[in-house]
C-alpha cells in the first residue's frame, strides 16, 4: 500500500470503527470519483460518491445564495439509516453511511444524557 493510500485507510478506519457505521468514503468533490473507500457489501460506492458530490455542489450554491457561508456538515436522515457528509477544504468530501441504530443511539445519549 502506498503512503497516501495507507493514510486514507487510517482516516477511514477511525470512522468505520464507530458502532453501526456501515461504511466510509473519501470522495473528490469536483468529479464525484471515489478516492478511498471502506464499505460493507451492498453499498454502491460509485453511485453514492457521484450523487453526494453533485448534491454538495448544489448545496454549496444554495448556501452561497443564502449568504450563510460554506457548509460544515450535513446529515441526511432516511428510514433505515443516514448519510453523513463533511466537505473538506482540500476539495474532498468525507462520507459516512450509518445504520439507524447508531444515529438513534447517538441522539439518545447526547440529547437525553442516557447511555444505551
Amino acid at each position, binding site marked *: 500500500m502506498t503512503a497516501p493510500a495507507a493514510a486514507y485507510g487510517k482516516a477511514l478506519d477511525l470512522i468505520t470503527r464507530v458502532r453501526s457505521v456501515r461504511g466510509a468514503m473519501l470522495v473528490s468533490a*469536483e468529479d*464525484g470519483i471515489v478516492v478511498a473507500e471502506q464499505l460493507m457489501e451492498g453499498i454502491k460506492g*460509485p453511485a453514492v*460518491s*457521484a450523487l453526494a*458530490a453533485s448534491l454538495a455542489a448544489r448545496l454549496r450554491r444554495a448556501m452561497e445564495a443564502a449568504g450563510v457561508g460554506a457548509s460544515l456538515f450535513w446529515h441526511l436522515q432516511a428510514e433505515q439509516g443516514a448519510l453523513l457528509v463533511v466537505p473538506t477544504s482540500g476539495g474532498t468530501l468525507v462520507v459516512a453511511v450509518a445504520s439507524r441504530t447508531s444515529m438513534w443511539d447517538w441522539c439518545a445519549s447526547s440529547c437525553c444524557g442516557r447511555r444505551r
Partner: protein
Amino acid sequence: MTTRAVETWTLEPLVKFVKEAGARLVLVMTSAGQVLAQHGFSRAVDVMSAAALGAAIMASTDEMARQLRQPPFAALNHQGERHGIFLAGLATGRGRLVALVVYDLDVSSLGLVQLFFEQLATDLQAASPKESVPKQVLAADFERQLSDSLNTLFGR
C-alpha cells in the same frame, strides 16, 4: 434542446440519460462514426465533425490498447476548464456503439456521467434489435444515407 434519433430504439434511453446525467451534448454512433441519435447539437456540420473525431479517438485508443496487449479501454475522459468530454463503447444487438458525451462541469461531473452511462448501456442493450442485420453501405449510397440521417437528426 432536442433529442433526435435515426434509429428510434435509441431515443428513450438517450432522453433518460440526458436528464439524469445533465449532459449538454450527446452522440450515439457506431464505431465507424455513423450517428444513430443525438442530443443538443444545432448544426449538422457539428454532428459530422464530432462523430468523425469521436470515432477516430476511439479507434486510436483501441489500437493503443491492442499494442499494449490489453483489452480496449472502457472509457475515456477529457477534462477542460468548463466542459468535460466522455467517450465510451457499449455492446448492443446492433453491434458495438460509441457514446460521446459533453458535460458542463458546473452542472454535471465525471462521476455522474459514468454512473448514468452504465444505465444507458443497459437500456440500449435491452432496447436494441436482437437480430442485427448489418447494412452494407455502398459508396453510391453513402452521401444519400448521410443526408437522410442528418435530416432525421435535425427534424427536417
